[in-house]
């Protein structure tokens, strides 16, 4: 089970990037092995259109089944839902704190676009 968090830089102490589509990168944590990886999101960041969809593709390809981010647009959310990825909203804090809050069940699941 992998979870991807939109982040401003690699690592657990990075702050959560409030943007999904134009996030700097995604920190991908494998909860079984504890392995940490980073997925670059620069292609989406510079896209004129469809950044959210590209970002969705990035996290799906990284194998994530859960995404924790700030705001997610309608197209990206639809794409993530089609790929059976759950999205949780988290504002502020570090990647570490976001994962802990999600693990404790204190983050809300996003069911409608938040931008």
């Amino acid at each position, binding site marked *: 089970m992998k979870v991807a968090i939109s982040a401003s830089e690699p690592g657990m102490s990075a702050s959560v990037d409030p943007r999904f589509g134009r996030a700097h990168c995604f920190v991908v944590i494998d909860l079984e092995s504890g392995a940490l990886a980073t997925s670059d999101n620069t292609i989406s960041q510079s896209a004129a*259109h469809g950044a959210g969809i590209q970002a969705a593709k990035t996290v799906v390809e990284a194998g994530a089944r859960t995404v924790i981010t700030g705001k997610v647009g309608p197209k990206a959310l639809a794409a993530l839902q089609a790929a059976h990825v759950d999205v949780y909203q988290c504002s502020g804090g570090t990647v570490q704190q976001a994962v802990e809050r999600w693990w404790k069940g204190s983050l809300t699941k996003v069911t409608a676009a938040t931008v």
Partner: protein
Amino acid sequence: MRIAVASGKGGAGKTTIATSLAVIAAERGLTTTFLDCDVEEPNGHLFLHPALCQKQVVNVPVPQLDEKTCRDHGVCGRCGQACHFSAIVCLGDVVVVNPDLCHGCGACILACPANALKEVPHRTGVVESGQAGALRFAQGLLDVGQAMASPVIRRVKEWGAQEVPAGLTIVDAPPGTACPTVEAVRGSDFVLLVVEATPFGLHDAALAADTLEALGVRAAAVLNRVDRFVEAGRGITEFGGAILRGTMPVLARIPADRQVAEAYARGQMPIGVVPRFRQAMERLLTRLLEVARREAA
């Protein structure tokens, strides 16, 4: 002859100048067509009051997925690799189509080895056309929420292209430097760049001038709403590039004029109520046609 009227930013006075030139050209007996290609906010009609009797829906051909055929081919993902616009993406074992982002290029359909995609029409806007006095008139109207302006602009131009060879076509292009502007300007014999003589206006005009240069279209500028600030020479250097290099002649300087602004705000054509503005537009049209004909020859 097709002349596009463009601007680096909105509110520079492009529509006022474009409609004025078109009306004066028609008064001079030229067969004149006005094409409002500012499809996100076409407002030439507010001044020209056309009778719009024809309406054409504009569709973009977007891919439709046959999920079963796709699955039978193992969701190979080639369609998503072919698309430059993220309008079709392959996410693991699902293919997601976003018609709103689709440019209708057909690349995904060609790329699919399974014939799992077929083209279906997706509405993006309408073209309305008719007559405004002596002017032939058409405008494109992008549907709310649609992002694909270019196909609508293309159709407006196609409507206009059924023109009499000796006629003049004025294209009101969308402001800016992005795809819609490029599409509106493409195929024009000449471009008149309306430059608002403020630091913002000059900055954006410089970008527009670079775009036109890159496109290889001949252009000239008209400085609009000139006041003491610009006359004093500040800011004008920021328009830098093209004007200073002399590649873009300045055909006219239109002073800032409260009466013109008032007429505009009332929805009146300023050439109808402000004689000095009419004279300025008369002179501008004469010079524009001279320069454009010389460049086109």
